């Protein structure tokens, strides 16, 4: 029996989730820092010699439950455990995203098809 294209694409998403730690490990291996314009306040201090006042105030306005796709206090964990957290983050984030799209889709889409 022929597999539906949506099934194949879902499998593709699952494979990407499993491979996602590549996006964490490669920057580490090649000693690449943060994305341009996404530095934390400490990096900002090193870069320009001060922390812009407004930036300092606003940067802590939101405490994300899973900051930077890692659990709270996991900053110093080895790459292996961070990769695990990365996958859990991907599963969680994509799960919430899919749920939200299905709710929006239910509200917006035409019933008759």
């Amino acid at each position, binding site marked *: 029996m022929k597999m539906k*294209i*949506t099934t*194949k*694409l*879902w499998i593709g*998403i699952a494979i*990407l*989730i499993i*491979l*996602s730690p590549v*996006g*964490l490990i*490669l*920057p580490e*291996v*090649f*000693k*690449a*820092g*943060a*994305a*341009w*314009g*996404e530095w934390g306040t400490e990096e*900002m201090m090193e*870069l*320009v010699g001060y922390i*812009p*006042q*407004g*930036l300092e*105030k*606003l*940067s802590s*306005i*939101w*405490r*994300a439950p*899973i*900051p*930077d*796709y890692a659990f709270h206090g996991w900053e110093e964990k080895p790459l292996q455990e961070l990769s695990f957290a990365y996958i859990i*983050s*991907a599963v*969680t*984030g*994509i799960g*919430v*995203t*899919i749920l939200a*799209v*299905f709710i*929006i*889709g*239910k509200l*917006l*889409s*035409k*019933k008759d*098809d």
Partner: protein
Amino acid sequence: MHIPDGYLGPATCGFFYVAMAPIWAFASRIVKKTLSAKQVPLLAIGAAFSFVIMMFNVPIPGGTTGHAVGGVLVAILLGPWAACIAITVALVVQALLFGDGGITAIGANCFNMAFVLPFLGYYIYKAISYGSAVDSNRRVIAAGVAGYVALNLAAALTGFEFGIQPLLHKTASGQALYCPYGLNVALPAMIGEHALVFGWVEAIVTALVIKYLQKQAPELLEEGKV
């Protein structure tokens, strides 16, 4: 390309929330008219794809990192308005749950990645692939070019938003209040790294998936999408 909290001043943050409000409203209306219940799973796959592809940080050795957005692909498959909604959902979840992109900058980040990027990519793809057969190589090339150009323009726009901050907000002593780098630094940095590296990632990913779909599900590439 996810602008964090604190890099844009209140004027810029407010401006882009106000700019996005009618776009989101209009996108909802258009999608309500055109999206069939059968397409909802594809919309969810699009949002999931955009979410996960943004987690693939690509390093510039010894420099910064960046990533593709996947938004041009979603726009080609579902139309730019549906793509706008799918990418918005991914960006909001990234900001709220993972602090990837600031909550004050959701308007700006959505304007760059969920509005300009899918729309520009969609129309470039349409222009280049105009009149071509569904299984033609021109479609694959069109997808790649659209991905490359759209990601670069979105990056340039992000650089512009960073770069105007020192002009808008300064303390009496001349220190920046928000992003400290002006246009002369922010624009070339954002454009350069995306033109050299990350734009190619978006181009290759978009082109490869279109190539795959030509074989596996050509019906998805037919005209008459949202």
